[in-house]
């Protein structure tokens, strides 16, 4: 009995212990539930606060998936929250054309290869396929161990402001174009009137009944009329070329030529232009041919040489040099003239700039020559550029692609 009693006692003890443990467990379970509930409430409260915000919030985890989005974000995107959470942010919500670039930046950020960008702007794709422009403030998310776990972006829909700015920019550009166009027209009109002034003036001079001009004077006046008529005609050709180049209507008659043949074809004109300078032509033997319009390349070459004579002193050297360079032939015209300051070098080929400079820096040309040269060279698949130093001279070069047909033959 004693043994039984003992066992009984033991049993009671065990039961009490069990009850205690159960009570303890129950208590801890309640605590855990309470804790979970508290956490849930905390989370919901945070979400509620985020949902109250007037800007969109999007958290993206390191695997590019959306971990959190607020109500405003759902509104802007046009999806329910369940449709967004877990989706790849970049693949689902960015337009194709920006996706790659933004993704690369994000991945580099996750790999700690780049510094985070605090402010950024990019378009997003909404449910109906419409794009919206969002201005983001970005924060990098870091866990307790210090690892980057994703990003949190707060974004503002700036589509309307952006569109308005875009529109204003376009209007501004159109206005500027309009201004340049009327400026060009005024300059062209001025340039046409200038040779006409001498033609009209000398014709009217010869017609004066009250003055008896000598034979020599008459000859002189008629020669001036002749010169100015040529100048007017050149100007009109230049204007037509410019207009054709602009509309892509310039006809190019292309064939395979040796560059030396083209230089020969304009050698008479070049010699005439450089009669007060020392012209040197350097062409290596055995160059591949170029597939170009002979007349147009001749025109570019004489134009560059003419410029060189205008802006360099009498007797100074002018050099035409031809050099091969990979699949290109490079032709350069070098003078030891006044040179062009660095700030203006980029602009000498610009038509509008040229047109503006007609008014101030006229040197007897039409002011359109270099922009026509650029148009011709680019239409033939080449490039034209300038190297210059004030007081030392200028070097204008252009490249022409080597003709492919001959390569096959060779």
């Amino acid at each position, binding site marked *: 009995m004693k043994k039984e009693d003992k066992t009984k006692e033991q049993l009671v003890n065990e039961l009490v212990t069990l009850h205690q443990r159960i009570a303890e467990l129950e208590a801890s379970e309640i605590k855990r539930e309470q804790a979970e509930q508290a956490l849930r409430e905390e989370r919901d409260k945070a979400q509620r606060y985020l949902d109250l915000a007037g800007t969109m919030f999007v958290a993206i985890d390191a695997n590019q998936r959306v971990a959190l989005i607020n109500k405003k974000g759902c509104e802007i995107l046009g999806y329910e929250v369940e449709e967004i959470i877990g989706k790849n942010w970049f693949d689902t919500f960015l337009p194709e054309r920006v996706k790659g670039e933004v993704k690369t930046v994000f991945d580099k950020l996750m790999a700690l290869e780049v510094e985070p960008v605090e402010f950024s702007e990019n378009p997003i794709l909404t449910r109906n396929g419409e794009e919206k422009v969002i201005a983001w403030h970005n924060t990098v998310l870091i866990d307790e161990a210090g690892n980057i776990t994703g990003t949190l972006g707060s974004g503002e829909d700036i589509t309307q402001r952006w569109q308005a700015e875009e529109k204003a920019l376009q209007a501004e550009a159109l206005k500027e174009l309009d201004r340049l166009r009327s400026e060009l027209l*005024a300059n062209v009109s001025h340039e046409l*009137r200038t040779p006409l002034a001498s033609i009209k003036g*000398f014709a*009217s001079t010869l017609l004066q009944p009250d003055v008896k001009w000598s034979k020599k004077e008459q000859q002189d*006046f008629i020669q001036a009329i002749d010169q100015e008529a040529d100048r007017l005609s050149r100007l009109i050709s230049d204007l037509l070329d410019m207009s054709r180049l602009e509309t892509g209507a310039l006809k190019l008659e292309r064939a395979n030529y040796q560059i030396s043949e083209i230089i020969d074809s304009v050698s008479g004109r070049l010699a005439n232009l450089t009669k007060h300078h020392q012209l040197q032509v350097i062409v290596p033997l055995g160059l591949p041919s170029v597939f170009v319009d002979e007349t147009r390349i001749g025109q570019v070459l004489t134009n560059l040489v003419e410029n060189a004579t205008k802006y360099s002193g009498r007797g100074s050297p002018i050099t035409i040099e031809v050099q091969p360079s990979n699949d290109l032939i490079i032709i350069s015209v070098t003078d030891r003239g006044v040179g062009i300051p660095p700030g203006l070098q980029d602009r000498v080929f610009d038509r509008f700039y040229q047109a503006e400079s007609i008014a101030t820096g006229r040197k007897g040309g039409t002011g359109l020559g270099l922009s026509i040269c650029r148009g011709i060279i680019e239409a033939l698949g080449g490039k034209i550029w300038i190297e210059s130093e004030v007081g030392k001279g200028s070097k204008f070069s252009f490249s022409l692609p080597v003709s492919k047909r001959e390569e096959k033959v060779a």
Partner: protein
Amino acid sequence: MPKILVIDDDRNLRKMVKANLAARGYQVLGASDGEKGLERAGLERPDLIFLDLMMPGISGWDVLVALQADQELQKIPVIIMTASRREGEENRARSMRAAGYLVKPFGVDELMRQVKLTLGSEA
């Protein structure tokens, strides 16, 4: 005989104006840009100046301003010759005391009429 200075960067136009003035007995001087024009005006004190507006370097406008700033030179009448038809330029030139305004191209009759209007028929 009145002395006339012709300032224009266009060689043929300068020659045309000079020939016509010289043939009618005026003493004529030429200058191919604004800087040379101002220098000759200061040295020669002409009775009349023909002035182009658009020239490289110092423009005709700059020449007008410089002439007006000089107590002696501001008395010389200036006739503008220009190929520009920009709005408001004639008024601007007149407000800078230009005595005459010729738009290129012009005939000799118009040229001589402006000379006589400005200098009287003394020559």
